[in-house]
């Protein structure tokens, strides 16, 4: 069992998880560090977490209610915000994790601890922003009189799926950017295109045709639709796309983590 490829995989998976448990306090400390730094180095502090999605919401509200009105079935500002909120969490996590290893190069080259801590803490930091910014969603729901549906109990599941997908990509990106610094720039372009390929500010399933078929493969759309379904519409997520997104998320995480873990030893030499 131990010598089969699968056996080795199970063993390294156990080691990976055990290391994270062992170093959990470091993960929290690194997260705390980044939050503290932002709070100290910027005047607006956590205000930035709210500012960006709100600004985006205002801009897209002008476009999609006045210039090119679309019907979303829900008041547009709250529709947009409910998409922008998880999308910012996703995009920001990836942006921070992509540079997490290179910007902490002194630590990577000189101290040993599981390197996953860097991208993971980038995600945790973004999660705090996500939590802060979700207060605005609460205010919008009160303003537009959207009642809180019992389906909100599924929120942790949706968040978990998103985090799994984000974590898998983060590990791959952080690693790739360490070996090739082009990745960071390339990925920023990818992210801006990806946003419009996802149901963030408009329902992407209206694209249709061959392009629509390609866009249907994007796992972020079912995830963001799921937020809207359980929070705003009081419905369960569309089961088939959501299950597919979950499967993609879990396999991305598994693949990303194993690849990261195997390459870990080369990090210090590549810096």
């Amino acid at each position, binding site marked *: 069992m131990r010598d089969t490829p699968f056996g080795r995989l199970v063993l390294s998976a156990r080691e990976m998880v055990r290391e994270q448990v062992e*170093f959990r*306090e*470091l993960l*929290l*400390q*690194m997260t*705390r*560090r980044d939050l*503290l*730094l932002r709070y*100290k*180095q910027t005047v607006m502090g956590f205000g930035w977490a709210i500012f960006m999605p709100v600004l985006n919401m205002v801009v897209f509200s002008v476009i999609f209610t006045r210039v090119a009105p679309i019907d979303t079935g829900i008041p547009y500002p709250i529709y947009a915000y409910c998409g922008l909120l998880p999308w910012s969490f996703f995009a920001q996590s990836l942006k921070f994790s992509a540079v997490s290893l290179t910007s902490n190069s*002194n*630590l990577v*080259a*000189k*101290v*040993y*601890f599981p390197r996953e801590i860097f991208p993971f803490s980038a995600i945790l930091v973004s999660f705090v922003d996500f939590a802060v910014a979700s207060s605005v969603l609460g205010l919008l729901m009160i303003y537009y009189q959207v009642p809180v549906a019992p389906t909100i109990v599924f929120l942790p599941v949706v968040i978990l799926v998103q985090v799994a997908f984000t974590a898998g990509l983060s590990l791959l990106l952080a690693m790739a950017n360490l*070996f*090739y*610094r*082009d990745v960071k720039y390339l990925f920023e372009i990818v992210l801006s295109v990806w946003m419009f390929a996802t149901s963030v500010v408009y329902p992407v399933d209206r694209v249709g045709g061959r392009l629509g078929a390609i866009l249907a493969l994007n796992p972020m759309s079912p995830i963001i639709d799921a937020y809207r379904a359980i929070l705003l519409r009081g419905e369960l997520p569309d089961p088939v796309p959501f299950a597919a997104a979950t499967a993609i998320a879990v396999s991305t995480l598994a693949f990303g983590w194993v690849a990261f873990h195997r390459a870990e*030893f080369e990090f*210090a*030499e*590549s810096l």
Partner: protein
Amino acid sequence: MRPAIVFDRVWKKFRRGERHDSLRDLIPSIARRWIRRRKPAPERLEDQEFWALSNVSFDVGPGQALGIVGPNGAGKSTVLKLLTRILKPTRGRCEVRGRVGALIELAAGFHPDLTGRENIFLQGAIMGMRRAEIARKFSEIVEFSGLADFIDTQVKRYSSGMNARLGFSIAAHLDPDVLLIDEVLAVGDLGFQQRCHERLAGFRRAGIAIAFVSHNLQAVAQLCDRALLLTPGAGPRLGEVHDVLSAYASGATATGDPRVRVHDARLFAGGGEDDDGRGPGARPIVRPVKPGTPVTLRLDVEASADLPRCGLGLLVSRSDGLLVFDGASTVDGVRPVELRRGERLRCSVSFRANVLRGTYLVGALLFDSFHGGWDAVRLPGLASFVVSETTRRGGCVELQPTYDLQVGAEDGARA
């Protein structure tokens, strides 16, 4: 007892020059690999590759300390990086049992914008301490560092010495099974360095295995019982600390001056009180000597050029570079000799080693006045000796003080 550190026939390969860091370089490298169609064998060196470590073995048991010395680039830090698992050996086995405390880059985890207090928690976590553990030891750490007044100041306002003190204080309060130290004690003022060394000695007594990399041979001699000498292009040498340090000290600074060939250079210690090292009781120095021991340097050189007015100079320096003595036969009124090309000169200089604990390098100068002015053939680091001290005196020179204490109530001196 099982060794805490095992380093078993370890080889480590590095690559010279730049590595490709952008996608532009990736494509040609993939193409090249595709053409070769084989994985590079770990035993072979591709171009630009070299062995940073070749066939290095040692082990360190609980309560033992191993000093690792050698010139820059010999692979000392690589050894520690392998032990901390930052690097992986190309070949061989490298194992550390138990909790590892690494005093390498003490301030690596510090963030300049955070305060000392915040950095203690961050750095502690990086070193593997639990939050509760750090909180418990917090006041002890601050007290040890002596930075109580600055603990809520941002670390970017600290001097580099303060930075290092805080770093060491955190590391010193870890409870490791294995401690790895890389040249970190050279910082901080004298009092703090003394405290660091005491702390390290305390760690050893507590049964912690220590691997200590340093250029401060004295600190190595003080802390370690065995040492490993790494020299680029030569095999590693492992042995009793004084043997290894002497070998390093005499080899490290020897430079070839083309005008002379040194056939033999050896230090002898006197046999008795009145023996100056020339007498029948004199014996070669192999063990550490006591302060005040008469020492003789015997030198046998062959001239490859004419040295018409040749005198002998003596240079003694401590391993940390402190020049202890610089003198010459001509200054003391000894007539220079005429040495022709191809002739052998056997000379000796005796002196009293009135120095305290440390490793000392002995070198010689051959003076020559060929062009009117003095021109010296420098032969530094010909030999070395170690002074061990049992008395509780510190410093460098044995001053043989006499003390006088008087308590006076109304004597004339004070009035």
